């Protein structure tokens, strides 16, 4: 006990240094998570809070829109993350050892959409695709095609959103991959060349395994980002047509702010938190594992 007290005293300055960060972490991250879990067990009105146990979760699993949102979110996560990783690997492995100016040009070209706000990007795509006054439907009509409405067709709305999100995010992955690939020791490539390995073999046997930590990082970050996909849905489709493009985050938003079902919205939040946790833990463990 005495030793503990002494250690505490000796390390006081250190604790004080980490205190601001710790306080912010507790107030702005831990407390909202705990409060979210608590709220998910209540039905909340302006005048009172009624404990309903797991009633909100039961309501959710009986709601076809929630199930549709979950399925859509899974489709988005799988498609966007896979597209981003594969395309970023392809571009990066093709250019990482080229002339520095060329690499910078490629990096810049893909990174420009990342710097533009998602709101702006969505509005630009909205301008292109809007069936009333959009450029693409207008051109299609001028060319005597039938009415084109990619956002109003349940079969095309998901691919459009996947493409828009992928196009906006892929620059980040390319930047990280190129940086990571430039850092791979040159002697490995030289040894492979001496052994007569083709470029494909070098990419698959040396490059991709060597940038594995970056891949894990990108997968985790992209999964978390895509799980929270919202702006593009809100601005392009509003979840439609007939909830065909609703995601968990959009469903949560609607319940919390439009329907005033704070308890149900909190339950969605808790479920999303658990999904993220489940997906992230094994990947984090693999990333931190020492070979």
């Amino acid at each position, binding site marked *: 006990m005495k030793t503990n007290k002494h250690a505490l005293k000796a390390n006081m*300055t250190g604790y004080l240094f980490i205190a601001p960060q710790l306080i912010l972490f507790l107030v702005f991250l831990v407390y909202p998570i705990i409060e979210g879990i608590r709220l998910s067990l209540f039905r909340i009105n302006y*005048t009172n809070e009624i404990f309903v146990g797991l009633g909100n979760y039961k309501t959710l699993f009986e709601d076809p829109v929630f199930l549709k949102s979950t399925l859509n979110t899974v489709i988005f996560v799988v498609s966007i993350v896979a597209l981003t990783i594969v395309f970023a690997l392809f571009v990066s492995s093709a250019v990482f050892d080229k002339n520095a100016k060329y690499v910078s040009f490629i990096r810049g070209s893909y990174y420009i959409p990342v710097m533009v706000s998602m709101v702006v990007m969505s509005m630009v795509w909205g301008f292109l695709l809007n*069936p009333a006054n959009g450029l693409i*439907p207008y051109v299609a009509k001028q060319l005597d095609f039938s009415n084109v409405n990619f956002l109003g067709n349940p079969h095309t709305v998901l691919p459009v959103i996947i493409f828009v999100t992928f196009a906006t995010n892929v620059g980040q992955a390319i930047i990280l991959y190129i940086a990571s690939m430039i850092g791979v020791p040159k002697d490995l490539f030289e040894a492979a060349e001496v052994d007569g390995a083709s470029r494909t073999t070098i990419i698959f046997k040396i490059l991709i395994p060597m940038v594995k930590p970056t891949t894990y990082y990108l997968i985790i970050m992209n999964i978390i980002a895509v799980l929270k996909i919202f702006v593009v849905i809100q601005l392009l489709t509003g979840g439609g047509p*007939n909830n065909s493009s609703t995601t968990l985050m959009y469903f949560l938003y*609607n319940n919390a702010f*439009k329907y*005033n079902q704070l308890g149900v919205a909190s339950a969605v939040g808790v479920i999303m938190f658990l999904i993220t946790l489940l997906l992230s833990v094994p990947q984090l463990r693999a990333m931190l594992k020492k070979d």
Partner: protein
Amino acid sequence: MLKKRFLVTALSGVLALSALAGCANKETTKPADNSKDKKTVELSLMLTPQWKGVMDPSEKGADYDSFFKAAADKFSKQYKDYDVKVKVEVIASDQRDELLNVKLNGGTPPDIFFENTFAMGDYAHRGALVPLNDIVDDAAKKDIDKKYWDSVTFGKDVYFYPFSHMPGTLAYNADMFKAAGLDQYIGGENEIKTWTLKDYETILNALKKDLPKDKYSNAYPMGLFALNNQGDTWNLAYLRMFGTKFFDKKGNLVVDDKNGVEAAKWLKKTYDAGLTNPGAESVSSNDVNAMFQNQKLAISFTNSVLFNSAKADMAAGKAPKFDIRLANIPSESGDPLTFTYVSGAAVFNTKDKTRIKVSKDFVKFFSTDPELVKASKNGIPVRTSVANEFKSQNPLFAAYDKNAQYLFNFTGSVPGYSQLRQVLYPELQAIYTGQKTPAQAMEDYQTNGNKVIKDSRANSVIEQ
């Protein structure tokens, strides 16, 4: 060492106290600096865009908040009890519920909200508004027709002070009608034309077939939208075209009857025949209004304020000029369908007695002041005295008055109306995209809608 630790501890303390000070509640009342006895009360007033200017959009610097800033200034000068400051904030209509729900859940509702009252009824049911019975006097009851008081009364209490109203109708481009050879269907400039449903179908087909493509390229006969809940009252009106009662006596949806399904089929048939703009499932009412103003639609939705704004935009050269006129939404029976949005102020229950009292006094002030109430001419005045004063300047006041016999109560005064709106447009989208048959969509709308009404009724402080 001790000095250093003391310094670090003191700095941390100051930091924590600053953070806490930032989180502290603001004082509702505090002594005024320049006054000996009067305390200052700061009110927040929110509104959605209604009309520009204090009295008229032609005023210099006219904006949506001009009227309330001027009213607050006038009120503050004559108010004896407190030194009142009013912060006026204009918010987008489609962001209203999001903003209010965040504010209510955070315990910081605005003091006053000025809006079309149909969109705010749920807040009365939720116990977030205070009754205004004590500021409604006999003179106001006499000057404002009973039907307006009925629309702002929930249970036994009045929750909104009626100011003006906005009747909803159709607007049409008479120039396009003439170009399509439809002169016989054009009404007078100050008339709200009534067509039968058969007439209406003839008009739509003629517009599609005979509208000159060189003059009106890419133009469509009628505006149709279902992207979200904005402008959904017109969709509700279309669903009544074949005579469905919509709500039963107990306040439940009964739209899944023969007439309701027939109306949904009519919408689908009209859409599929290319008599409306394409992509109705992903087009908003704003898009449709813009198309109409750009002469890409011959017939669109409108209300009195939108109609005046469209005319003002044309006069100011902001939009192409054309001959814009009004018509009723037709029905199979021949009797037209019309509705109105009553606009007025509500006072939120901020749990601060002083602010609630001052808010009520301010609402009463701008809703009864003989000069300020004249601003209601920007919509249609609810006060007979104001309507009479301005009827010579605006001949449409008489047309709207004549039309009032066809008004229907589109909310059914049911609890949960805001959420009920959220379950309609996905069903309309399903109809237009062919994901559901009109009958299936109406059945689902009724089932989902009645669940919303049932849950909201259980939580209503008024109906318990």
